[in-house]
């Protein structure tokens, strides 16, 4: 197992924010986490990366990485693992790059620090990495010269520079155009296929996750309300919240104009979801907080 | 706004100090129990019953000079600030709204004023308008107005480009409406900060002009003038500059406190603008 979460609870003080998340992520596997904002997706990711915000702790359960319980790791060991075993990209790529350094030099720096490459070798490898995220000519460019999608790809290059086994993409495409989003998702899928990179893909959009994942977790208010293989969750959702997410797509997405290969999506299930919308009224917290 | 400022402790302290200063300005000249211009027996004397703060290099009573000088000093600083505000703030707001010609003109003018050697300008204007305190303070006000112009312009620009202002314009709002409803509350706090700064500059400038004989004729007492005189005789009365300095500093400090208080009670928009570059421009 590359990454394994077993009944992870996350608390700050005496308040619990995440009430038990478990999943096994094998090499080359993809786990998706869906949920509205504030449902605990980012906290879960941060727990897996060992970078919970100050005051937050994994109050019970275990996170194990490559078979090792991360609770036993020292700060130093964590630092060594981050980047070379597990890595992440987030929603706002611009804030993770230094505006005064070229993109290429920042990728190369990671290689020098993490893999102890010489400067020359690091530069050559950085050029290769940027090529692999389809950014052939940006080594000498500065972050402000790149579009949002290009920045996110540059950040992915930085994140995979030290050859991690697990990459967490937390809302990595949320701020991007749909066409650019698909480009990033396709890139992640290619990387998984070519290098066996395991992925954790987080989004508030079920469809984004569904495109890529083997297993999906649906979170709400810190709890996993539904979990299972993508096809089960999509075609036979058990929880009303999942049905609501599917229904939102059915009535407002592109799906109803395209021929569906999954007949189970239509009909009874969705009618049910429409009728059950009423109890969820008032589920309007989030974005602004 | 005023009430909310007064509710804050910083606002209270600032108001109290400014009230005392205002009282000094009003009644100070009446309280001066000795003729501030009349030289006495001993020069550069230490404190005594007759001269609580001693005498200066011409034997004049220092306390009386400070009291008598307070009105000129305070009024001078107030005038500087007022002129700077009127000449700076209004064009600052209008430069954003009145089209590119006005914008270009005011920007060049502000640059020119900043580049102009201060004293040459001051001498030229007093030569033109006559050598008096109001003329000199008017000049100084003009000289520091680019600060207000820039602060106001930066703040107005930031507000003018915001979607909520565009929403108002799309509904048919006039420039006046936009300024009254959206711009004003947001540019006020940065202006207040600049104001405190200018009031301080005003005091210092009144003194340096006095020193050079521009505007205020040397025998006329001002806080800055007393300070300048004291500084010349440090070796005889090393403690002497303390009181005029304290008066100037208390006033400047009160202005700064007031600016802080205004910032604390101002809304989101204004706060954001204070920390923005504009204020330091």
């Amino acid at each position, binding site marked *: 197992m590359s990454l394994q979460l077993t009944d992870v609870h996350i608390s700050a003080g005496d308040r619990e924010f995440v009430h038990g998340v478990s999943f096994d992520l094998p090499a080359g596997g993809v786990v998706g986490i869906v949920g*509205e904002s504030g449902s605990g997706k980012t906290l879960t990711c941060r727990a897996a990366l060992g970078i919970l915000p100050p005051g937050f702790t994994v109050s019970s359960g275990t996170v194990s990485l490559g078979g090792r319980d991360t609770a036993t790791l020292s700060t130093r060991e964590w630092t060594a693992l981050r980047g070379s075993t597990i890595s992440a990209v987030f929603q706002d790529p611009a804030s993770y790059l230094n505006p005064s350094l070229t993109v290429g030099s920042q990728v190369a720096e990671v290689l020098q620090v993490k893999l102890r490459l010489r400067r020359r070798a690091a530069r050559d490898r950085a050029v290769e990495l940027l090529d692999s995220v389809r950014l052939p000519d940006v080594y000498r460019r500065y972050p402000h010269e790149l579009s949002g999608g290009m920045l996110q790809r540059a950040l992915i290059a930085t994140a995979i520079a030290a050859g991690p086994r697990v990459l967490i993409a937390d809302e990595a495409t949320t701020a991007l155009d749909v066409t650019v989003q698909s480009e990033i998702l396709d890139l992640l899928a290619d990387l998984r296929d070519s290098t066996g990179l395991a992925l954790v893909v987080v989004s508030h959009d079920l469809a984004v996750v569904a495109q890529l994942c083997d297993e999906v977790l649906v979170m709400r208010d810190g709890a996993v309300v539904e979990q299972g293989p993508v096809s089960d969750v999509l075609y036979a959702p058990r929880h009303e919240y999942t049905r609501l997410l599917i229904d939102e797509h059915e009535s407002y997405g*592109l799906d109803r104009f*395209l021929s569906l290969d999954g007949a189970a999506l239509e009909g009874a299930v969705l009618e049910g979801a429409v009728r059950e919308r009423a109890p969820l009224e008032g589920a309007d917290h989030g974005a*602004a907080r | 706004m005023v009430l909310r400022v007064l509710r804050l402790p910083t606002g209270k302290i600032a108001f109290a100090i400014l009230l005392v200063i205002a009282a000094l300005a009003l009644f100070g000249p009446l309280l001066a129990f000795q003729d501030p211009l009349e030289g006495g027996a001993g020069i550069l004397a230490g404190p005594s019953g007759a001269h609580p703060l001693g005498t200066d290099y011409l034997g004049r009573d220092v306390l009386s000079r400070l009291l008598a000088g307070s009105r000129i000093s305070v009024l001078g600083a107030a005038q500087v600030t007022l002129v700077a505000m009127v000449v700076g703030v209004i064009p600052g707001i209008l430069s954003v709204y009145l089209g590119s010609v006005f914008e270009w003109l005011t920007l060049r003018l502000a640059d020119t004023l900043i580049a102009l050697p201060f004293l040459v300008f001051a001498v030229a204007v007093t030569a033109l308008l006559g050598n008096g305190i109001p003329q000199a303070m008017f000049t100084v006000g003009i000289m520091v107005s680019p600060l207000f112009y820039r602060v106001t312009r930066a703040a107005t620009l930031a507000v003018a480009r915001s979607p909520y202002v565009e929403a108002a314009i799309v509904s048919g709002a006039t420039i006046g409406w936009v300024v009254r409803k959206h711009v004003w509350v947001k540019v006020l706090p940065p202006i207040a900060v600049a104001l405190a700064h200018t009031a301080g500059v005003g005091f210092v400038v009144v003194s340096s002009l006095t020193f050079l004989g521009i505007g205020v004729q040397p025998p006329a007492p001002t806080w800055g003038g007393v300070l300048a005189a004291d500084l010349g005789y440090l070796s005889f009365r090393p403690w002497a500059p303390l009181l005029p300095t304290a008066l100037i500093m208390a006033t400047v400090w009160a202005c700064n406190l007031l600016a802080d208080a205004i910032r604390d009670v101002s809304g989101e*928009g204004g706060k954001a603008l204070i920390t923005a570059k504009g204020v330091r421009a």
Partner: protein
Amino acid sequence: MVLRVDGLEVRYGKLHALRGASLSVAPGETVGVIGETGSGKSTLARAVLGLVPASAGQIVVDGTDVTGLNTRQWRAFRRRGVVQYVFQDPLRSLDPDLTIASSLTEPLRIQGVSFAEAASRARELLKRVSLGPELLDRLPGELSGGQRQRVAVARALIVEPRLVLLDEPVSALDSSNRVRVLELLKQLRDAGTSLLFISHDLGSVAGVADRVAVLYRGEIVEQGPVRDVISRPTHPYTKLLVGSAPTLRSAAADRAARASLRALLTSEGAVS
């Protein structure tokens, strides 16, 4: 036609942001404008509202040719409340220092309506966007993103406009809030208001619009009924758009198709 845009060109200095865009919106119709970031969508809306000048072409809003209006004529036209605008960013589209009540009533107050009357309209509109009257005394900072966007829609509606331009009204919202706003737009459409719905995502427009226009690098490259554009896209960019929209069915098979469309578009971009 509530809106007719003909051969519209807009330049920002050297940059040619719109190159002859033509588009029309019939009474009661909802038209979607889809395009990537920088394709000129906001420029189109801003030109219609007179916020940026057109360098060529004609814009007719509800029978008034607005192309040559001067500042005063624009103001008079805007006060009639024929057309309104909802901005992309719910965080910045309401003045942070004004209560929801003042923001909501502003368009009416500008028209000279008394505060009492405007306030009672504001209350009605809040109800219409499913928000409670207790929000009236709040500041925008105390509302969630979804609530703010609904307030912004309510503000646009308070003058009962014939045409509402919506610039990416749901792009910054998460899915449950997005659905709420989309539902609201659907109600508006059904009540007969014409909408120009701008988005980078065909998916969010598909459920609401009657027709869509695809804007690519300042030109409208494709236009037609939603169903036709989605099921038979002709321009490569439209094909990529359709192929990129997140759908619930697994899209693994489309990856290669998307890659070749992207290659096609970049090579075309290099030529032009």
